[in-house]
């Protein structure tokens, strides 16, 4: 750059290494060149500002600053004019100017920070802290008010995923809903009153933050700490309210409708035990969900299996051997349709084809091969065990 002056360092644009006479012009340049939304052409103030704008207004993720040099495209760094430029880069720039070498391209070999695109120009050149942000990076004082600076200042996390929006990680950790709200007003839970022509239009939900993935996690509505809900825990978090003008039609506790229903069932156990009346114990056990009881049942069932069929209790047989049947005959007897094919799932690799491959399968264990073609009604009481160790049916005792 022949045009540069000897001593006085001119303001320069970090994104494209261009120098300007005046910081004002630099700022104009940045707004027009680097911080302009490509969709609506709104001029934003900073890279993160642009990114937030695109996320919230257009639901677009911007991962690079437009028109920037490849290694200077980090959109997460808050730069406004000369403010916010990483000090390594400032020094580097200075050095190059002093050195008088042509800085037309000005591609310092020093790796500034890992580039989102993975252009890790890890060249030699005594770089200070490759990939590290200078600790002394100052908050840009010249920011216009109203910008979400307050929090961006702590930022400068150089290691952000490309797809990750610009929230500093430590903020995500804290998940502070308080300050986050004023900054990103539209990130506030949006079950707002005026909202929603119900369902008809697929407006992207304006809380760009919360639904753009695991990025900025909006304050979780369930204040349930992860992994803390043991099956027996009594403390149930409540469902967060949506606002005055809307109401979630759901019980207050943040557990599933099925759990609520199951719990009610426990106390009103009369309703669901029409069956199994023959077995004295099971009526009590039927609605009891306690693990112990079910284990006991299992044990009983297991035991029952082991007892010789001859010794089987009639009641046991009733329970385990004979499913409750409805008057209709087995399907196969009426319908010659696909369902008739007595296929077993394991024989077919994919979704069961119809009758196509009916004979491919070996016959069930105790069944003579000739029986395959028989109507299922015949097999109904026949001595066979279609699914392995099934309990015996009373008839062939």
């Amino acid at each position, binding site marked *: 750059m022949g045009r540069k002056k000897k001593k006085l360092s001119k303001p320069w644009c970090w994104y494209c290494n261009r120098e300007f006479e005046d910081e004002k012009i630099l700022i104009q340049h940045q707004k027009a060149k680097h911080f302009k939304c490509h969709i609506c052409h709104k001029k934003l103030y900073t890279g993160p500002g642009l990114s937030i704008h695109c996320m919230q207004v257009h639901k677009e993720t911007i991962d690079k600053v437009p028109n920037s040099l490849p290694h200077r495209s980090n959109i997460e760094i808050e730069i406004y004019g000369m403010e916010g430029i990483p000090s390594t880069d400032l020094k580097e720039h200075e050095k190059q100017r002093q050195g008088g070498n042509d800085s037309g391209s000005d591609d310092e070999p020093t790796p500034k920070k890992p580039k989102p695109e993975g252009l890790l120009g890890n060249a030699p050149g005594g770089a200070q802290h490759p990939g590290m942000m200078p600790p002394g990076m100052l908050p840009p004082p010249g920011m216009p008010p109203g910008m979400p600076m307050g929090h961006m200042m702590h930022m400068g996390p150089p290691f952000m995923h490309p797809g990750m929006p610009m929230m500093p990680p430590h903020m995500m950790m804290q998940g502070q809903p308080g300050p986050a709200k004023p900054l990103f007003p539209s990130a506030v839970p949006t079950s707002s009153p005026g909202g929603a022509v119900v369902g008809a239009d697929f407006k992207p939900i304006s809380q760009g933050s919360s639904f753009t993935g695991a990025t900025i996690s909006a304050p979780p509505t369930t204040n349930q700490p992860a992994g803390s809900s043991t099956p027996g825990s009594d403390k149930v978090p409540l469902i967060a309210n949506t606002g005055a003008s809307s*109401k979630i039609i759901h019980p207050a506790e943040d557990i599933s409708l099925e759990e609520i229903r199951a719990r009610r069932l426990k106390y009103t156990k009369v309703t669901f035990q029409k069956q199994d009346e023959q077995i004295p114990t099971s009526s009590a056990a039927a609605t009891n969900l306690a693990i112990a009881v079910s284990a006991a049942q299992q044990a009983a069932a297991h035991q029952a299996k082991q007892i010789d069929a001859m010794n089987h209790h009639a009641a046991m047989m009733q329970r385990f051997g004979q499913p409750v049947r409805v008057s*209709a005959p087995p399907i196969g007897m009426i319908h010659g349709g696909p369902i008739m094919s007595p296929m077993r799932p394991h024989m077919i690799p994919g979704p069961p084809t119809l009758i196509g491959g009916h004979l491919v399968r070996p016959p069930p264990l105790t069944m003579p091969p000739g029986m395959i073609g028989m109507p299922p009604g015949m097999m109904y009481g026949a001595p066979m065990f279609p699914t392995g160790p099934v309990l015996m049916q009373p008839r062939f005792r």
Partner: protein
Amino acid sequence: MKSQTEYKLTSPPEGAISAVKFGPNTSQFLLVSSWDNSVRLYDVTANILRHKYVHDSPVLDCCFTDAVHSYSGGLDNTLKSFDFNTTTESTIGTHNNAIKCVEYCSDVNVVLSGSWDHHVKLWDPRTPMCSGSYNQGEKVFTMSVCGEKLVVGTAGRKILVWDIRNMSYTLQKRESNLKYQTRSIRCFPNKQGFVLSSIEGRVAVEYLDTNPEIQKKKYAFKCHRIKEDGTEKIYPVNAISFHPTYNTFATGGSDGYVNIWDGFNKKRLCQFHQYHTSVTSLSFSHNGEVLAIACSYFLEEDNPPKPYPEDIIHIRSVSDQETRPKYSTTNT
């Protein structure tokens, strides 16, 4: 009766309906699990109840593995299978808490059960035994099979993606993009992603590919809300079912409505009339021509409506106009 676009099944379950599932290759048979402890098989074309078997407690989910075998599980913690040809019932195994969902993965030929004991167990239908138990960290609320992948939605708004062929590690762990409790997850038939619904009248369309370009396409939208006297009532979206070929999907909410959506083009294709109470489960038939709609009041409100709504299964013939994307999709 059958000539109408919609009719009710006769002899419906006597308790709330937890799941309806059409058979894998016919729209004739519908499997229905219920809080009356039963699993029923209906012949939908003839509109008769064909078979019924019972658990000791309410049944929360059921599935077909092929046309004649079903698996089911519920509050008795027990996974049962039933052979409709021989009407033989077998107990496959147990969990330590209620089994909330049962799915079948045809690609790997394995039955999967998800439970409130935080585990998903795999069962080999050939030798009815457990071939693996995998901790999900939270109660399993919903799960869906997507080719060889399994997407699990748990309490605490967590989503886990597994490869069923290699369950030794979790492929992806995500937090739901919706801010409220996950209600249902179903995968796109084209295996690109899944649809997630929450109790707060909202549905998210998500992609499995973690490439940022692909992830950009995800979005969520509000639905199943009714505005009444200046207050918006927001209902849980209980059910999702995909059209097997068009990649469009139906959602059913506690508002009693069923909507059909084109997820790729972000369009609602149609809305059916309002049903008398909450839609708890939906199932498209294998060819997408019939939709089963299960309606049961599910204790969403503190004071149940009077009279207490009946449990009804509607069988509705759906037309191409209602289910096909309006214009060609760019990415199928």
